[in-house]
């Protein structure tokens, strides 16, 4: 492929990395904000997600341009297609994070401190770890290293599943009054977003593996 193709693809890759980093920073900030329900930090976390959607549309347009002008084949084609799908996964991770922040801003003070420390923070920590590992894969091209990181992400994603299950059980067992049901439902729905963000991290990691390993696109 021509240098112009490599340069264009590098730019797309860098943009994806930068945008994914913003989602990661938002989740890290959310983690810190949750520790003491800091309204200031929640707002800061929200700020990191500003304009992500339009930035991703720009990247998608760049990718379409590359497809139209360079007609990539084989690994080049897999890479471009993977990036096009990764932008969608980042968008979903970003909107999940945004929903999570919104509910925290509204209900954080009402959530038992013990629940936050024992369940919510570990759940968020696993989400952050899964995202962090996935983003680190973007700039790695050694397949063995990528596979190792992929397994670490699977471990973190499993943790989010288990922690969410435990959290749900705990919250529901302590539900005393049916008047709390609506709030509890909203909070649980929000916590579930952590699990979904970790799912997105797995999907992105899987797409990065697809670039190097080939085969067929598949669900993890």
């Amino acid at each position, binding site marked *: 492929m*021509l240098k*112009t193709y490599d340069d264009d693809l590098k730019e797309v890759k860098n943009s994806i990395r930068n945008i994914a980093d913003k989602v990661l920073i938002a989740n890290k900030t959310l983690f810190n904000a949750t520790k003491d329900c800091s309204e200031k930090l929640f707002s800061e976390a929200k700020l990191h997600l500003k304009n992500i959607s339009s930035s991703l549309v720009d990247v998608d347009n760049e990718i*379409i*341009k590359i497809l*139209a*002008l*360079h*007609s990539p084949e084989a690994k080049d084609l897999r890479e471009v297609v993977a990036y096009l799908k990764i932008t969608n996964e980042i968008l979903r991770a970003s909107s999940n994070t945004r929903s999570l922040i919104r509910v925290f801003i509204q209900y954080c003070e009402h959530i038992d401190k013990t629940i936050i420390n024992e369940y919510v923070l570990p759940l968020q920590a696993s989400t952050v770890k899964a995202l962090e590992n996935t983003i680190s894969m973007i700039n790695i091209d050694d397949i063995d290293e990528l596979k190792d990181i992929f397994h670490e992400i699977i471990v973190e994603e499993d943790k989010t599943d288990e922690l969410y299950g435990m959290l749900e059980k705990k919250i529901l067992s302590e539900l005393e009054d049916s008047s709390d049901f609506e709030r509890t439902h909203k909070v649980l729905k929000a916590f579930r977003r952590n699990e979904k963000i970790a799912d997105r991290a797995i999907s992105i990691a899987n797409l990065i593996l697809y670039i190097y390993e080939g085969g067929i696109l598949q669900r993890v």
Partner: protein
Amino acid sequence: MKLAIDTKKFSFTYPKNSSPTLKNINMPVYANQVTALIGPSGCGKSTLLRSYNRIHDVYPGNQYDGKILLYNNKGEKPENIFDYKKENELIKLRQRVGMIFQKPTPFPMSIKDNITYGLRLLGIKNKTELLDRAEIALKGSALWEEVKDRLNSSATGLSGGQQQRLCIARAVALKPEVLLFDEPTSALDPISTASIEELIIELKREITILIVTHNMQQASRISDMTGFMYLGDLVEFDKTETIFLNPKEKQTEDYITGRFG
């Protein structure tokens, strides 16, 4: 964007033809850009390309209408190339607007002499200057490393891709302002094609490039502007990105997507 060439209401008729092959073409060629001409066989793209250095005039009886304005990089008033009447004016035009053909056309002489031949015709006699200019041209055409140890060997011993790069170096040595490429890679394998494409992208820093190609992917890969021609008309001319992503004319879209006919 600065203009290198401006084609205004240009029509061209071959000798003994009753109707024009090119009809009322209006097309700018921007400086230091690669402009690609695409279209089905017989649409007139090579005829248009060859008009830019009046190579048709090698044979008499052609009829030109309209103007082709050639700009220089000093910002002076452009010249209409059809105002050139004398032989030396046409030679000068072909120095300013060089041409690379489909099949490599090395002269049956050494690699070095292939490059210096045109320079000698220009009156350069100093051997050191000739060698220096040859080295610069070969480096500029990404051939130096491959031939530096056999400059006195015959150019016909080079591979097809190397011969084509030698022809480019020969043209580059004359310091042209514009280079016309008429399907320069259609006789080459994919590796040689890639090296010529890389070279074209490099050359556009110094030289304005016009290329005729049947290879749609080549046009999309290397050009900045693209013109689609059909039956002697310039159907659409725009940024390459627009032509290949959002063409305005249905004919262009049909041709690019292979639904033409």
